[in-house]
């Protein structure tokens, strides 16, 4: 599998470290809603098809990349810097 790192270009998957589901949403840091935190830490969908996940380019620029990957074919549908997407929304600690 090749992952198109936005910084380094297409690189072999062995240069990357899987960092999990990129669709998880971190609750507000001050939240004490245990269910929301539980869902964030443990609940994972396991879609058969396109899925967004974090891959860190540990053998290259070390950036976290959000990769959209088809779990059935391993086809990579898109890749972007996680820091540009800021998808977890957390603004305060």
């Amino acid at each position, binding site marked *: *599998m*090749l992952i198109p790192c936005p910084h380094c270009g297409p690189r072999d998957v062995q240069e990357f*470290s899987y*960092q999990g589901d*990129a669709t998880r949403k*971190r*609750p507000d*840091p*001050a*939240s*004490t809603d*245990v269910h929301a*935190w*539980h869902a*964030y*830490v*443990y609940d994972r969908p396991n879609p058969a098809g396109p899925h967004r996940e*974090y891959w*860190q380019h*540990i053998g290259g620029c*070390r*950036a*976290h990349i*959000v990769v959209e990957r088809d779990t059935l*074919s*391993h086809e990579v549908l898109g890749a972007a*810097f*996680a*820091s*540009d997407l*800021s*998808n*977890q929304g*957390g*603004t305060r*600690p």
Partner: protein
Amino acid sequence: MSPRRAASTGLVDRSQALRFTFDGRTYSGHPGDTLASALLANGITLVGRSFKYHRPRGIFTAGVDEPNALVTVLSGDGREPNIPATQIELYEGLEVESQNRFPSLEYDLGALGQLAGPLLSAGFYYKTFMGPVFGPLKGTRFWMICEHAIRRAAGLGRAGYEKDPARYEEMNAFCDVLVVGAGPAGLMAAEAAAKAGRRVILAEQEPKAGGSALWSGEMIGTRPAHQWAQAMAEKLAATENVRFLPRTTVWGYYDGNTLAALERVADRPSGTAKGLPRLRLWNIRAGKVVLATGSLERPVVFPGNDRPGVMLAGAAERYARQYGVLPGERIAVFTNNDGAYRAAAALRKAGAGVVAIVDVRPEISDAARALAQEAGVEPLLGHAVTGTAGKRLTRITIQRFDAATGRVSGDGRPVDVDCLAVSGGWSPTIHLASQAGGKPVWDEALHAFLPPSPMQPWVGAGAFAGAKTTVEALSTGRDAGLAAAGKKPSRARLPAVTAPALDPAPAPVLEIKAAGKAFVDLQNDVTAEDVRLAHREGFISVEHLKRYTTLGMATDQGKTSNLPGLAIMADARGLPIPEVGTTRFRPPFSPVSIGALAADRHRHFKPDRLTPMHDWHVGHGARMMEAGLWHRPMIYGQPGETVEQAYIREAAAVRRSVGICDVSTLGKIAVKGPDAAEFLDRVYTNTFSTLPIGKARYGLMLREDGIVLDDGTTWRLGAHDFLMTTTTANAGKVMQHLEYFLDAVWPHLKVHVTSVTDQWAGAAVAGPDARRVLEACVTGTGVDNVALPFMGIVHGRIAGAPVMICRLSFSGELAYEVYCGAGHGAHVWEALMDAGEPFAITPYGMEALGALRIEKGHVTGAEIDGRTTARDLYLDGMLSKKKPFIGSALMDRESLIDKNRLRLVGIVSLDGQPLGGGAHVVEKGSLDELGASIGHITAACYSPALERHIGLALVKGGKSRHGTRAFVSDPLRKRFGPVEIVSHHFYDPEGRRMHG
């Protein structure tokens, strides 16, 4: 010359003799022979005993599909089992041994198992041994008693115990077009792609290019096909943009058009003197792949079809034409298609007697009839072979057969033969395409599965893609090569092919039902009756059939048995074959030596991490140990000292005067930026924004789930400038943790983290005299209690080199960590040694470091084991109540604050015997009787300060057990003894010494 060598030499060089031994006897063969062809040439047809029934077995094929003729290759005391004789290129001095026989191949006691034949049907082991046998032998216990004997009786070769002397290599390769298979189609494809300027790799599993051209007897252009193939291969090998890899099996088709291949460079036990590897593993990333893997012949299944002497018709033809070897002297042919007629003619031409052609079909083509004439026999149409006799085949029985109804009728007619060449038609070799994804497509005319439509960028060619003639193979090959190169099909003329006009369609007959054992899977001894039994018992899906009967699960992956097995199941279910379906093929296509996959290749290019003081340590008697990738001193041994004596001396020196330890391996991360303090407040459980510049603080990190991640000190060097230290083992993990939060969760924080572990050298100077050592060598700063209080940081120089000194203690003594640029590390270390000389400064290693920290009750990776919380380790005081931090939301979940959790305690041995890490703590029991565990010891040592054997442990209830007695239970090390549970702060619990 042996009687089994034909007049024509084929492609074997008879001017040279090669000696080899088989079961201790010496024979002779020639370059170009395989072990199989050489054995046949010497008249040896019995080469092994079968897996389950110990039936005599011979050579069934001439290639990668061989199920029967597995041998063990010997080299001194080394042995490599289960190698098909058809895949071993003969070399001088080759030594092999037959398998699965006792006491000898000829007289095998295991064959008595055949008498119990019906008992050993599919599922027999499980039904008998796992089932409800009553009394003391019930269930699995009975199985455990019998397993040993069964495993010995049923099985294949035995592996050796010797270290493998051979060398293995791994290669990564890239190409525009990878062509798999160098038969007529593959050669054309490679040529077309190369001419279009593409970088081409052409991989062929056999030693020579040509595929079917090596033994088809056809003409391509004006030359015999094998000469055409050789010329093509030589031309391609000399082309700059082509890499031709003979002896290379492409065995795996993975995502992203990445394929794995195994090259047998010098495949013999010792490798070669030239330093070539034995095997080379290729990881090939290809733009496009041309699959030209040809087809594999399948047998017709009939009673007694496994006797030595029964072989595939194409194999018999190949032995005659390519190797100039006669597989028998009186040969019969049994077929459902025209192809075997060409084999009959070839065998006759090579000098064998062809005594019968038995064909299940009522009618045959004119071309087949002409070939029968060349073979000198009148074909028996509408007949089938229904039985065989002889330990080595001596006789077959022929009966009338109706292909429309599948019924056998009339009396059996015996015919004396020593070889029976069988053909059930040909199936495209679709394994790689199936691995790449997609469902195979049934072709009614060929009575075979064709490859699926591509799920990855590959193009098919030749017999693989359903080509029925060599002409079609050439044209589809060229078009596939052009397509892979992004070009349109060509209309240029192809070389003419001279070949008989055979009918490619077989009769749909793959089994003759008659009395007697008929084998589907020869290697796993699965019979046609086993398949029907599976059907009767409800295992009708092909996936269940496979697992229940083990059909197709042997090392040959069912290359000859796949379709006959499906045909028999389809018949039992009354369905057409495509509705029964086929299993998905998995890598590897053919067996891959573990050596090639697992051999240590320069430790997979992992670095050896050496600290700047490494040479000093080694030069001063350090015994080094590996800690992750780092090499660290374990002890600095003096002559005659044991490891224990050395670390006790070193640790005692730290408590008495002063010691020095290399701490360069600690993880060091520079955390910089306007939001650095805010960031640290979020990742640590305690607060860092309040830390004054020039001070350090001990910090604790949790994971999101509330479990402890790591601990360490972080130093504030400036308002926006921190130096974080981590444990040696967790440096990478913590770095990744920080990067994740900065990238994915808080990208707006203005913070940058950089690993600076390798940039700093560090030395811990510890002991009552530590300050005096520094006073003697540090310039530019005071180091007294005012200038450098506990957790204070100063900058100065040692022997001219800039240093940064923090007063912190891991050992519990007055101690300092001295950091300098890595390039000055050895220089500063030596200056510290000089300054410490009057105080008998003693370098100490990991063992002493471990003992000192256990005495102090400091936790490390053994206690921060991914399961413990801050409360478990009595670090609750570090948990800020004023701010949220990573892990704060989930750390107080019910189960994480349970009273009975395993919590940190100290353990003292009461019988004066050592404690071992990993040992259990129990309330009662004995050496022989296991008590219920209430926890385990995480680390243990002999404490020089307490003069006792002590340890840290995680025990249910923790502190509430202080002062109570328990036992250490370590059955593996035969240790059982009384202990007392105490506080983990064994030594100087008030910390007076480090504050002094």
